[in-house]
């Protein structure tokens, strides 16, 4: 050790800067600050409006502190059941659609044309946020849970098929080769060499998606796609903040419960 140090006792080292050119570096910092100042200036702040809003917000919070589960219990019950039904149906449909699309979107097992088509479907599904898709389906099928189910099933594809395809692309290729060498065809190769390697992950992801779909079912309801979200939207329109509060508490409880259960299931699968 001593020998190494003795050759040159004081050699300086600094981490090389991220941007080499000093003028460019400081210029960019300055530019960002100027932009921030201008951006803040462009937002018109109406203090009178804020004051009114604060007052209204206060009333809302006060109402929220006294949730009313009773007066609209029937509506809430229908909404919750509808949301749960939407979640179950859309998750099952989504998983059933995602498996073939995921297989098709895995580069190592799918021929190029099928790969491109399946990747395309996944990209479309991932590009649009659930609310945007929900609006489209509401326009197509009218208000109600059908639009919600379609939305969530479609959104599930973007999530599940993509992650499944990525898992398949990372499988150990050796068993795949070995099963092909026995004279097995494509379908048998998939069931013996690919599915065993990804099935645990697939179940875990499906359970995870179930709890995402429950959360999303409340959101898509707000644009008219059925479920508890629609009930919630109605209470806001009527300024029934106490009922809204009850609904929110129910949603939070449900989401927490499913998250807990899905985390437990996924832990078991590891």
């Amino acid at each position, binding site marked *: 050790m001593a020998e190494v140090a003795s050759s040159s006792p004081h050699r300086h080292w600094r981490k090389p800067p991220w941007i080499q050119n000093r003028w460019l570096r400081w210029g960019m910092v300055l530019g960002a600050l100027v932009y921030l100042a201008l951006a803040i200036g462009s937002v018109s702040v109406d203090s009178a409006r804020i004051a009114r809003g604060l007052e209204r917000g206060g009333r809302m919070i006060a109402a929220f502190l006294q949730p009313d589960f009773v007066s609209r219990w029937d509506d809430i019950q229908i909404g919750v059941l509808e949301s749960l039904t939407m979640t179950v149906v859309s998750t099952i449909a989504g998983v059933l659609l995602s498996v073939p699309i995921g297989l098709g979107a895995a580069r190592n097992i799918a021929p190029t044309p099928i790969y491109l088509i399946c990747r395309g479907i996944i990209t479309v599904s991932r590009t649009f946020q659930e609310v945007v898709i929900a609006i489209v389906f509401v326009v197509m099928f009218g208000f109600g849970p059908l639009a919600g189910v379609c939305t969530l099933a479609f959104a599930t594809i973007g999530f599940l098929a993509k992650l499944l395809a990525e898992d398949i692309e990372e499988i150990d290729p*050796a*068993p795949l080769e*070995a*099963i092909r060498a*026995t*004279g*097995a065809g494509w379908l048998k190769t998939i069931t013996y060499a690919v599915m*065993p*390697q990804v099935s*645990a992950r697939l179940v875990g992801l499906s359970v995870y998606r179930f709890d995402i779909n429950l959360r999303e079912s409340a959101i898509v309801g707000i644009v008219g796609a059925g479920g508890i979200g629609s009930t919630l939207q109605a209470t806001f329109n009527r300024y029934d903040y106490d009922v809204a509060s009850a609904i929110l508490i129910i949603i939070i409880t449900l989401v927490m419960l499913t998250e807990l259960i899905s985390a437990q299931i996924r832990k078991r699968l590891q």
Partner: protein
Amino acid sequence: MLRIEQLVKRYPTGDAALRGVSLTVSEGQVMALIGPSGAGKSTLIRCVNRLVEPTSGKIWLRDTEITALNQRQLRRIRRRIGMIFQEYALVERLSVMENILSGRLGYVNFWQSWFRRFPQSDIDQAFNLLERVGLSDFVDKRADELSGGQRQRVGIARALIQSPDLLLVDEPTASLDPKTSRQIMRLITELARERGLAVIINIHDVPLAQMFVQRIVGLRAGEIVYDGPPDGLTPERLSDIYGAEDWGASQTAVPEQEPLLTAQE
């Protein structure tokens, strides 16, 4: 029984892995294929069952020209060619029994394979093979619970349950300790003799090959540079295959040292 004529494989990158290899393996012959890494050993045996598509050249298994088959016919002929792999290539999440029965996939229909409803004769055969390779107590163990040697025994059983005429063996001992390596080589050559199979074994460990096979073929840069009996591998011949090295020193070396430079990948 296996005839290879002027086999050429050029990869899309332009690398020529095989430059016109011609080779005949007779019924029941056990042959070792040696040569440095990248000489084309793996490519050669994978061309035989067309896991790798040859660029040109012809391959016959008995009267069938493998290189002329369509996909459907190819799957049928693959049933007659068993393959054993370097890293065992088992499906780790499946049981020992499922891994062995997967050797019958070319014979059963899809629903039989999906529900694991294999014919009784297949199951009997699987139990017999399990006994033969010494794994009777491991039927429903998952493959990833086994040791390296045990996994390779499952790999051997999977290849044999195909009732093949030819065995292709790719570096069967590369991940095993010296003792297990010998046991596996002994098992493969014994089973081949019992069943009268022709075997091609890719192997890095030359002394191990010399111990168990009747014929050695040396491959260098995609061409055959040696074809003869194991004891014909003089230091000069080894230099032809692997390049210059002090072969005498390593061959008499104590076992703790590396047997050959090329025993490592």
